[in-house]
């Protein structure tokens, strides 16, 4: 109950900040940046695996967001909207620096949602294992398993079919299992 109320308040002050930023108030936009930069940077870092590139992507995400702010619907989540921009920016920057990898065959097989590890693993080891995944599998895994987007949402953000997204997750699970030496359920 208290959490829901806090969430409501958060959405309301965030909407007020968006309105002020739309009117040209960079101080209001800075507050939005301070609130969301960690999550945006985390996403960019996991997608690019490069600190400098992730910083560039984070900057570009907020600059693009500033330009597009009047088109943002305050009823939707600002965090999700920023993540979409961050994914687009990261994909575009990555395309310039690395060749496009072939997509796996789409699959309709069921994908378990939990992403639990049979044996607990250190954060560093998991992050390294995720970082070593092929780009497509890593993107799908990061958006779905870490940031909680559905298959459909992750597929839409990445510009691929939902079946392809599921295939990438299947591939990610298999590779993680091999690299971590533990079952990923």
């Amino acid at each position, binding site marked *: 109950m208290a959490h829901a109320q806090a969430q409501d308040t958060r959405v309301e002050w965030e909407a007020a900040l968006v309105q002020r930023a739309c009117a040209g108030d960079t101080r209001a936009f800075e507050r939005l940046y301070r609130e969301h930069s960690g999550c945006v*940077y985390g996403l960019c870092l996991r997608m690019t695996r490069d600190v400098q590139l992730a910083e560039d992507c984070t900057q570009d995400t907020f600059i693009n967001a500033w330009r597009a702010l009047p088109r943002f619907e305050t009823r939707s989540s600002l965090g999700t909207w920023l993540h979409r921009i961050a994914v687009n920016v990261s994909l575009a920057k990555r395309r310039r620096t690395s060749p496009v990898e072939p997509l796996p065959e789409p699959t309709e097989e069921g994908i378990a949602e939990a992403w639990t590890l049979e044996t607990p693993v250190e954060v560093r080891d998991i992050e390294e294992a995720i970082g070593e995944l092929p780009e497509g599998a890593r993107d799908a895994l990061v958006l779905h398993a870490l940031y909680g987007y559905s298959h459909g949402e992750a597929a839409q953000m990445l510009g691929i079919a939902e079946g392809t997204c599921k295939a990438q997750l299947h591939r990610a699970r298999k590779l993680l299992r091999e690299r971590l030496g533990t079952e990923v359920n």
Partner: protein
Amino acid sequence: MSGPYEGTERKVSSLGELPRSIEPGRDLWPNIEAHLKGIQAAAPTTTGANAIPPRLRRARLSWLAAAAMVASVAVGVWIGRNLLPGVGPGAPGTVATTATAPPGFAAATDATVLDAAYVNDPRYQRQRAALLRSLPARLAALPPPARAKVLASLAAIRKAKQDLESALGKDPSNALLQELLVDTYQDEMRVLTDVREASEPGRGI
């Protein structure tokens, strides 16, 4: 790749336990802000990303003058309130400022106290009431496009005030909301002052 990740020795048993948020190694805001200023400077017809009709652009200077006036009045009010016995920032009618800001946001500053005193000052209230009374007649004197723009601005300000007041109803001691509400009242004052000046003979928006 483990460098940027905090608590890397911690063990987790699910990918969902990995931190979503990772703080960049340096503050990226100064660079972003420089870009935003560049965007604003390159497109003088915009504030943020919203287009403003060219005729309203000329009014910006008078808005700045109004803002300066607001600041000086606020300082005067603050000094008066703090020097008069029993009429300080904590007196009835002033906005509470002792609250905690939302996570990730700066705490209340003296500016909040000063701003709150400004909004509660009777002189401000009288001036605002007078400007609102004369608004319909002044709007009628404006060309239709300028009138529409002013009405849209006032509607946006009214909506922002409603949102902020509603949020303050649920979280009355939130310093950030209080500050934003005062800022919104100041925005309204700037628009009203600008309309007054623009509707005077020989002037225009």
